[in-house]
């Protein structure tokens, strides 16, 4: 789960990372109240899950209540790269002397934590990495040893951060590492991390990505679920406990296992079509989940055919077949189904489908995933 800036800053504050005083607002009036509480001048910042907010006019400075109201009114409802702004973050403007970059991620190749630190912050770090890789200090942290202040200070020196800022930066790094590990982040990034004219170091932005697998030990994440940007199909799928990602093609996909689902997307493209979605019904899916998956896919008006690709392991072919029969009894699916069934209890499954009395133009069975993909693409092309 990716957090919005204000949520990231709230999370940072819990782990002792200094952030500017501020509050979130959904109306111009709330923005003014937040500005009054923070003290002028303030920065009004659009809260959306995309970069490039500044260029789009989504970050503005206000010196009094009238300006705060005007800016919040202009930014709220604005569309940035297709995302409508529903919230602004209003915080006290900072006197910036210097801008740095700091982040923690997992280095999957080294199987250790990776600190990236640079004295060149406030710009796109990928750009810095490409044009001036020496400007980024990379320090691996052993997950069992953790990060101590001395190591953090040495990293600051290696990154070219001036002496007067090193103690402040080191303290932020140790706190940010705590947020990254105890807070179960996939990514904890500050860009820019600023040195103010008065000599303090604090986070001016927050980019936090949380590890969904750790949600069981973070009940506090629940309050942020409401701002996740899901389309109607994705919301319906999540309610049914399905792994679903909406795409823009016309062949609906249902497969068991992430790898097989991705592979199904690939072969649909190779057959000249485009997938409408990624949907993994998971291991051990039963008839009810299969029926739910079909309903989610069929709710997408762009879908012209549904390709069901199941290789039974834990998932049983007879359960998949019962799910299809059940779904077709419960609702009238607009799109015809093409199915490829192999693995555990596949023969029983094919027998159930054959004896269910489903018309041949509503359900087609194919022996391999390539043939099934070609058929599904052909049907989608006819129906378009």
């Amino acid at each position: 789960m990716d957090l919005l800036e204000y949520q990231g800053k709230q999370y940072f504050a819990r782990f002792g990372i200094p952030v500017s005083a501020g509050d979130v607002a959904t109306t111009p009036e709330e923005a003014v109240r937040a500005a009054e509480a923070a003290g002028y001048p303030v920065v009004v910042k659009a809260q959306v899950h995309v970069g490039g907010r500044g260029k789009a006019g989504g970050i503005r400075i206000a010196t009094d209540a009238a300006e705060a109201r005007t800016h919040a009114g202009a930014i709220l409802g604005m569309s940035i790269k297709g995302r409508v702004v529903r919230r602004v973050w209003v915080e006290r403007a900072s006197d910036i002397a210097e801008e740095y970059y700091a982040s923690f991620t997992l280095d999957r190749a080294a199987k250790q934590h990776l600190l990236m630190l640079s004295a060149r912050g406030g710009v796109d770090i990928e750009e810095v990495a490409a044009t001036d890789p020496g400007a980024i200090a990379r320090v691996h942290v052993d997950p069992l040893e953790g990060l101590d202040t001395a190591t953090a200070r040495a990293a600051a020196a290696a990154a070219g951060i001036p002496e007067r800022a090193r103690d402040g930066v080191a303290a932020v790094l140790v706190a940010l590492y705590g947020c990254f590990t105890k807070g179960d982040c996939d990514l904890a990034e500050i860009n820019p991390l600023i040195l103010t004219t008065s000599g303090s170091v604090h986070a001016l932005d927050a980019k936090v990505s949380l590890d969904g697998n750790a949600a069981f030990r973070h009940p506090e994440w629940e309050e942020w679920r409401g701002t996740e940007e899901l389309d109607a199909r994705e919301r319906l799928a999540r309610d049914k406990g399905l792994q679903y990602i909406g795409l823009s093609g016309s062949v609906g996909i249902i497969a068991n296992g992430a790898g097989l689902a991705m592979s199904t997307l690939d072969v649909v493209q190779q057959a000249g079509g485009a997938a409408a979605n990624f949907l993994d019904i998971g291991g051990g899916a039963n008839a009810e989940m299969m029926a739910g998956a079909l309903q989610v896919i069929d709710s997408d008006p762009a879908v012209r055919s549904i390709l069901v690709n199941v290789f039974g392991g834990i998932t049983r072919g007879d359960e998949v077949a019962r799910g299809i029969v059940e779904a077709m009894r419960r609702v009238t699916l607009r799109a015809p189904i093409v199915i490829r069934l192999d693995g555990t209890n596949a023969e029983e499954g094919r027998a159930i489908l054959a004896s269910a009395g489903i018309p041949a133009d509503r359900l087609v069975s194919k022996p391999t995933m390539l043939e099934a993909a070609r058929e599904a693409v052909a049907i989608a092309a006819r129906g378009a």
Partner: protein
Amino acid sequence: MAIFVDASTRVVVQGLTGGQGRFHGLRNRAYGTRVVAGVTPGKAGQDVDGIPVYDTVADAVRTTGADASFVAVPPKAAPSAILEAAAAGVRFVVCITEGVPAQDEARVYASLLRDHPGTRLLGPNCPGIISPGKCNIGITAGEIALPPVAGARNVGIVSRSGTLTYQALFELKSRGIGVSTCVGIGGDPVPGTSFVDCLAEFERDPETDAILMIGEIGGSAEEEAAEFIAARVSKPMSAYVVGVTAPAGKKMGHAGAIVSGGKGTAAGKIDALRRAGVQVGANPTEAGAFMAHIVRG
């Protein structure tokens, strides 16, 4: 021969009394795997269809001589279950558990490296390992794997994805190609066993004549494998990398499968493998056809 496990491997199932552990543990035994013990704290003295249950892995190892473990417990309990097995001297641990937090995986990996270098972890979030005809630990349906064929060239499989592992076994079986060992390393960010670990073992294994590899988007494991293949693998290989059509920035089910910042794309991985001399198919069927050509000449 086979890699990591063989007909003499003695398996303890951690979580044998649970739904998953019981189903797959008994299925593994029915396949012919020596499932000698189960572990569930507080249930010592019970048995599951004749398999004795112990409170701790150490007790199970002492009494039954188990040298491999099958961890089938929920995500919360998996990290400590893996470390318990390692501390008890188990040399090979298979963890099928899906949903283990990445921070826990990183700590477990570091702990094994530092404190238990003699223990190899496979997974978490993997289908397990099968040496057809000898040993099956995990959730793979044994009947889709063809045992090594005498007098023919046999293939080792290594895969990052569960169901595509089955698909790979199926592609080879339908062509009459035997499999020495099939290893599912799992799709999580910190897998205990990597492509490179498996490739090194297959290169040494006299029963493995060629290698089929199934990669996926995200991370750099395939690129690292390509580097290793170019330098150290003499056996012929075919491969498939899934996710050519995956959009950037979306996790495709597996915690590890994501294209981000222009990195981890299927195209980059395919290119790296081809440069290392691997025949890369556009889908599992084509990778299987390439392999048939490799082993039959």
